[in-house]
């Protein structure tokens, strides 16, 4: 969320995003728990404050009641009427906690607390030293004033939301600090690639141009093979150069969309990669129907090149690459090493590679995904380890041309 503002590093990898989300989730949970604890402490302190106010009043009532019990005890059994008051209800229990007499509305009593809330009543217990009428415990009951409760809950909600907002601001600040080293390292890598790319252009162009110009008819077979290898190597570097250029320069440029004849484009790109595929004796099988799409041709070329390049790179010797093109989709299928299920979701991450035996920066499929996402296309990967990988790209109906559309 924060990193996306910077276009140079807007491709935070999903693992980094998930780390960020995990940090935010943890931070939110911890902040909520702290607020909850503070809320509970505040509630308890307010309750205690209310109890301390009520305690004074109830102690005074209890003393009055004890006097009445003393009188009744003295005159018992000639007087048998239990003392009652308009201010409170009361009950007496003996030392064995057996009820002697009660006028309590809520008979749920607790012998171990001096003052407590019981339903909508407050109970206060006085422990008697002289057991008048056998009473060890004198319970007094009054109605609870709910005003403190509503005030406390309102305060908790308002203060809680305010604190959460303040903590969220602090959280964002901390996330900035946390992400800075990660951003710096990605930026460093991007800058390195950008700088390196500038230095690659001239030598690659020179090599490829000179290889094309060389007359192979006058060469001995040994030199022909050497030149062939130079051509393959130069094309590999050229492909990498184009990826890097796209990543560092073209990616942020305005797209020049036009109708592309995909069948023709596939045929061109397959021809381009034939020499590279030949180095591993990989055979192309093409099943191409006419299809046209409204897209930037440079970007579509990057998608096709990267998919074919990967299909060659991760293929077996004497393997095959099948390309199927239909009006609404295309599939690039290889007979390569395949990808483990657990790694399929990570293949589109920048700087991620299937294995370390093959070269590359791990940016090809990341570029493919960014272009696919930019045009709202859909890409899916099906892979069986040891058997091969199918990559299917589906087009948007709005961007597909008619069979005769070729403008």
């Amino acid at each position, binding site marked *: 969320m924060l990193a996306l503002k910077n276009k140079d590093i807007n491709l935070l990898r999903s693992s980094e995003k998930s780390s960020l989300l995990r940090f935010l989730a943890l931070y939110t949970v911890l902040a909520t728990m702290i607020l909850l604890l503070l809320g509970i402490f505040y509630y308890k302190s307010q309750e205690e404050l209310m109890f301390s106010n009520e305690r004074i009043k109830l102690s005074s009532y209890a003393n009055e009641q004890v006097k009445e019990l003393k009188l009744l005890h003295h005159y018992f*059994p000639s007087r*048998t009427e239990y003392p009652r008051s308009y201010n409170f209800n009361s009950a007496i229990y003996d030392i064995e906690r057996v009820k002697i007499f009660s006028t309590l509305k809520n008979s749920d009593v607790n012998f171990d607390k001096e003052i407590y809330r019981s339903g909508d009543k407050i109970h206060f217990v006085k422990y008697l030293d002289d057991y008048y009428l056998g009473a060890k415990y004198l319970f007094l009951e009054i109605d609870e004033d709910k005003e403190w409760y509503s005030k406390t809950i309102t305060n908790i909600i308002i203060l809680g939301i305010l604190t959460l907002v303040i903590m969220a601001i602090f959280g964002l600040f901390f996330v900035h600090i946390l992400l800075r080293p990660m951003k710096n390292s990605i930026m460093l890598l991007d800058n390195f690639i950008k700088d390196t790319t500038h230095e690659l252009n001239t030598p690659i162009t020179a090599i490829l141009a000179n290889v094309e110009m060389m007359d192979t008819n006058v060469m001995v077979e040994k030199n022909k093979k050497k030149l062939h290898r130079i051509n393959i190597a130069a094309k590999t570097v050229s492909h990498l150069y184009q990826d890097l250029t796209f990543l560092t320069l073209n990616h942020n440029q305005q797209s020049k969309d036009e109708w592309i004849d995909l069948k023709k484009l596939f045929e061109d790109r397959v021809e381009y990669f034939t020499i590279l595929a030949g180095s591993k004796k990989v055979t192309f099988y093409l099943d191409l129907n006419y299809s046209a799409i409204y897209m930037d041709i440079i970007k579509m070329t990057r998608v096709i090149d990267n998919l074919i390049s990967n299909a060659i790179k991760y293929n077996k010797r004497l393997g095959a690459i099948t390309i199927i093109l239909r009006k609404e989709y295309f599939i690039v299928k290889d007979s390569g090493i395949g990808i483990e299920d657990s790694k399929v979701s990570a293949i589109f991450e920048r700087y991620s590679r299937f294995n370390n035996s093959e070269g590359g920066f791990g940016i090809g499929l990341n570029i493919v995904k960014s272009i696919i996402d930019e045009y709202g296309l859909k890409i899916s990967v099906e892979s069986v380890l040891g058997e091969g990988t199918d990559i299917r790209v589906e087009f948007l109906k709005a961007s597909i041309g008619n069979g005769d559309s070729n403008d």
Partner: protein
Amino acid sequence: MIKRIIVISLMLSALLYAETKSENIKENKKENIYEHNCIPCHRYLPSSLGDMYMRYLKTFSGEMTLKAALKAFLKEPLEQTSVMSNLFIDRFSVKDKTLLNDKQLDEAINIYWDLYNVRNKLK
């Protein structure tokens, strides 16, 4: 036939009367344990048994506690364990040990508790 009915009725009535009589005797016997063993001596004291019950109640509170304390005192009366005032003890001294066995003592104490129990009397 009528004679037989009259005879059977008379026999049944006699049987019922005998049973009722025996229950009453038992009841009286129970009361007698308290009345014969407690009231005669306390009758001549200025503090009634009711007053003494209230003293016990004020000191021991609960039923089990009171009964246990009273039983212990009756079996082993001591000045220190008496609930009565020093003035009372100085004048009338502490009573003699009870001659009742445990079962009789429990019966007498239960009758005493039921007789003066405040719980059923409070309104």
